[in-house]
């Protein structure tokens, strides 16, 4: 009896050890997959910090914003709208609108986070950026295709988040210090890092033209909206019209079959 229990405890300890090792390696895998993304993030962070300093935000207030809010697009919009004193309601509302795509992103993550306790899921969501979300989802789909049942890897996601978070805060702060001596990052081409990253992620999600039809709707609507409407409206416009298209096509596929 006691021997059995001893054996079981031994196996359990070995399993826990393997789990700890794989947690560490999963975290590292997430961190290293984030490195190419940082090539685009770092110049943007420097530019944001510089712009914020120009609007009168102090070197302490910049990391407070980028650390508590941690959503680049909305921070660029906020800094553009910043006055002294700032218009609290306007900036808060704009922040919500610019980040409204997170609603869809969180919804898409929900099936993967279902088995996670709330005390882990809610902190994890605080760090959800386009980049970490896309990397973790693409990774989860790849693992699911490989037959791994726990396809969403929380330590992998944590690795991407830690990389993004530390770099974003450090380099926005540095930007606010260096502000006046920096030029325009766009003249060098660093902004192309974002389309590059997202195109590779899209290729990873590609499962044939049939399933990608909604993407084309999104691309066309978002592209036209960005030409015709000032501001960041093209993101919700493109995303929502693609999803409406997906929903109509899915009705054909599923409800018609019944």
């Amino acid at each position: 009896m006691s021997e059995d229990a001893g054996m079981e405890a031994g196996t359990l300890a070995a399993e826990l050890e393997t789990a700890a090792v794989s947690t560490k390696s999963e975290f590292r895998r997430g961190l290293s997959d984030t490195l190419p993304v940082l090539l685009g993030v770092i110049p943007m962070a420097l530019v944001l910090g510089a712009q914020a300093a120009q609007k009168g935000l102090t070197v302490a207030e910049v990391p407070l914003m980028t650390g508590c809010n941690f959503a680049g697009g909305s921070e660029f919009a906020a800094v553009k709208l910043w006055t002294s004193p700032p218009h609290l309601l306007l900036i808060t509302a704009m922040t919500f609108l610019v980040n409204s795509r997170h609603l869809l992103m969180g919804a898409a993550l929900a099936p993967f986070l279902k088995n996670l306790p709330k005390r882990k899921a809610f902190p994890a969501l605080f760090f959800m950026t386009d980049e970490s979300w896309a990397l973790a989802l693409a990774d989860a789909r790849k693992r699911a295709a490989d037959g791994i049942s726990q396809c969403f890897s929380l330590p992998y996601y944590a690795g991407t988040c830690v990389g993004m978070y530390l770099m974003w805060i450090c380099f926005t702060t540095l930007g606010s210090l260096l502000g006046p001596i920096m030029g325009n990052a766009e003249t060098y081409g660093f902004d192309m890092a974002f389309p590059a990253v997202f195109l590779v992620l899209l290729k990873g999600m590609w499962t044939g033209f049939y399933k990608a039809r909604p993407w084309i709707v999104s691309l066309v609507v978002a592209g036209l909206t960005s030409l015709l409407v000032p501001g960041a409206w093209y993101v919700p416009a493109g995303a929502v019209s693609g999803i409406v298209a997906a929903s109509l096509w899915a009705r054909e596929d599923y409800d018609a079959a019944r």
Partner: protein
Amino acid sequence: MQLDNVLTIFGMATATYLTRILGFIALRNRKLSPRAMAVLEAVPGCVLISVIAPAFVSPHPADLIALGITVVAALRLSMFSTVVVGVVSAGVLRHLLG
């Protein structure tokens, strides 16, 4: 630190965190139909392609050519190589074509 600035920053942080958790909360305890799952499967691609859509309608030829090169690179190369190709081609073409 100015109180107005700090309050506005907390307003932003609250708004952003709400966007991050509300979609998750809405779907967390739902059993989704196959149709809903199919729609949800399309969401990531639709969001990603919408975020980068302005690059596809840029008025600058240099940007469009660089994007074309980046698309080809994305189909063939790793993430890191694609980013390098994209950044370098955009930088060089903008320098050459203005």
